[in-house]
């Protein structure tokens, strides 16, 4: 094989598409935007229905499906239910989950997370992690008062996520998964 043929890495330049005259005026887009703004300004009915006077007024949440702060469930022996399969990390579109798995110290389980961090600021609360989990270990709770004084504080580690479980298990009990461990 000629020497220059192996894995060519030359940069290809692509030109941006040029705008048409109508697009370059920007006026149609501007008026289109104003239309929506004006409609919202003058429809009192919509305003009254949508606005809630928080914190005096609270929304009624559907607790089973509300996607708030995450929690890590405990199994029936009180251990972390997670098996460190990395499915949630794989499914996460925001890349906010970071797991370090290791061989578990227990006889009946193969693998467990020694570290499980979720960056709650980076998370988009889509619930993909919950969908992906094969043992229903990670779940989203109805908690939405998420406050912290620094970015570091908002990276929830394993202990903190287990604490969220302890706090919310009465409000939203763990589902009974068919498989509880590997």
């Amino acid at each position, binding site marked *: *094989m000629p020497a220059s043929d*192996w894995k060519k890495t030359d940069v290809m330049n692509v030109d941006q598409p040029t705008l048409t005259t109508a697009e370059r005026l920007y006026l149609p887009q501007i008026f289109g935007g104003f239309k929506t703004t004006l409609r919202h300004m003058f429809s009192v009915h919509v305003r009254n229905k949508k606005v809630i006077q928080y914190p005096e007024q609270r929304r009624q949440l559907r607790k089973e499906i509300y996607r708030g702060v995450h929690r890590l469930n405990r199994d029936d022996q009180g251990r972390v239910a997670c*098996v460190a*399969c990395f499915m949630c990390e794989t499914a996460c579109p925001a890349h906010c989950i970071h797991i370090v798995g*290791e061989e578990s110290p227990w006889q009946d389980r193969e*693998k467990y997370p020694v570290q499980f961090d979720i960056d709650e600021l980076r998370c988009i609360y889509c619930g993909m992690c919950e969908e992906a989990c094969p043992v229903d270990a990670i779940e989203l709770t109805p908690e939405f008062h998420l406050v912290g004084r620094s970015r570091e504080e908002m990276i929830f580690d394993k202990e903190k996520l287990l604490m969220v479980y302890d706090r919310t298990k009465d409000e939203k009990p763990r589902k009974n998964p068919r498989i509880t461990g590997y």
Partner: protein
Amino acid sequence: MEGHPNWRGQPIDWQGLTDVGRGGHRFVRRVASGRMSPIEVRIDGKDFAFRLTPMPKIIIDGKEIECRDKIPVLQAALEAGWDVPHYCYHPGLSVVASCRLCLMEMKMPHPQTKEMGWAPKLFPSCQTPVRDGLEVRFASDKVVENQKECMEYFLLNHPLDCPVCDQAGECYLQDYSLKFGEATSQMVEPKNKNPKKDIGSRTLLYSDRCVMCSRCVRFCDEVAGTGELGIINRGSRAEIDIFPGVPLENELQGNVVDVCPVGSLLDKDFLMDQRVWFLKSADSVCNGCATGCAIHVDHNKNQVWRLKPRFNPGVNDWWMCDEGRFDFKYVEDPNRLTRLTVRRGVEAQPADWSALDEVARLRLGGVVEQKGAGSIACMLSPFMSCEEAWLLATFVRSVDAKATLVMGPVPYEGEDRHFPVNGNGKPPKFTILKEKAPNRRGIEMILEALGGETPKLEDFLAKAGKGAYGAIWFVGGYPKAWVTKEIAAAGEKTGVTLVQDILPSKLTEGADVVIPSCAWVERSGCFVNHQGKIQPFEAAIKPPDGCHRDGNYLLQLTGESGLYNAARVRDRMSASIPAFGELHVAPEPPAHAH
């Protein structure tokens, strides 16, 4: 040894090719790949005759394909792009036809009427050699039914613990049950639970995930030659195991993990580190010894997690040794040099990379002005890629046309080890060389091409130890300690020393300029192995903070602008050293082979 699978016609003996020279290799490859078709050729004044026997044509699923002679139908089908499920067949091992997954329908003459028709029974395609006019089919109800039943059988006792299994993502139980299996199982009894066994210092055996393909057993018997693994018990209670008190301790044991098509044999080093789908793979060449095994460097988050062999016929075939596989940890050594330091006066101070160009030119140029031509030297390392060595050598020669160029120490350890052990005089299937550097030949080629003053290392060190040189540029990059007493003495006696290395040593302590170098997984270029094959490799990860890729600053030193691109440097090199115009690139194995 078998020929190249992409070669048309008869496989040509690789061993027999060594005497035709490099040009001969290229020519043979062209003839064999069908790009040229003379029968008699003349190389280096000698006549060589290549008799190309007609290739057998077989019909698979009604489509006629041409294939190499004397290979199994399965291999021919895989090479032609068919996805035929198989576990026990491996082109590097003997054929046992035990998994029954690759069964096919074949046309045979009727015993009485002699009329050709589909035989009522299925045949293992891995055990049936191709012959001209053979007609087989995989796309038939019988074959598909067999595949489904086989898959159900393989999964009878499988624990389905994919979430915690390291093989998940590259597991052929997963792939095949998706493509060829059924979603349901008729098994109602509780599954057999086989134990997890610690069979060797680097390998774990999960026998409940095993499909009894016996690839690992055959590998230990046929390639390693040590035969530690065996099958105990029979039928559904059969298990892979070691003999009592004899653990799996050969120097190729990492390969049993590679040949295992499922997650039964796992690497302790990689155990539960990463899920394989996160890994990105770079095509590289092992720098452990002069064999130059083609490898995949699997990395994620700027960290190398494992090395895997890449199919490279004639060099390492499918295998690699444990030494090369596991000894890459020095890349993450916390002591690595990460700052460019320049000694100004007594103290060594960190410097900016933009200053390197000027510093190197001034210091080396100053010595040449003071002491005259021939007073500077450069010690090239056999761990450098050819491109980097060439760039550095041309830079040093541009400062001083009479500069001395010398190759640094080539580490040797013990003796060459051939596998299988006790091979009874047969050609070895794998060799670990005692020469523990990847690029001695490449550096020699460059030194030869550049000519001038290129003494032997001992003579050079004896001379340098007496302070004969005004300045020396030392290049290290060795994974282990390499600075001998003589080299340290040469450094001490020399006025100006520039040291380009990855780990701190006695030499870097006293150096005037310390240039933090990169490990081979952070660089790109080519190595020339002991057979003279020029093999390119690409960079896998970024160098640690503070380091620059060697190619980049060496390119700047030579006065070029822009980023280092190994292929472009090779193009320039091939103008003066034509051998670098042609690379040995490992062929892609068939897409569905494993």
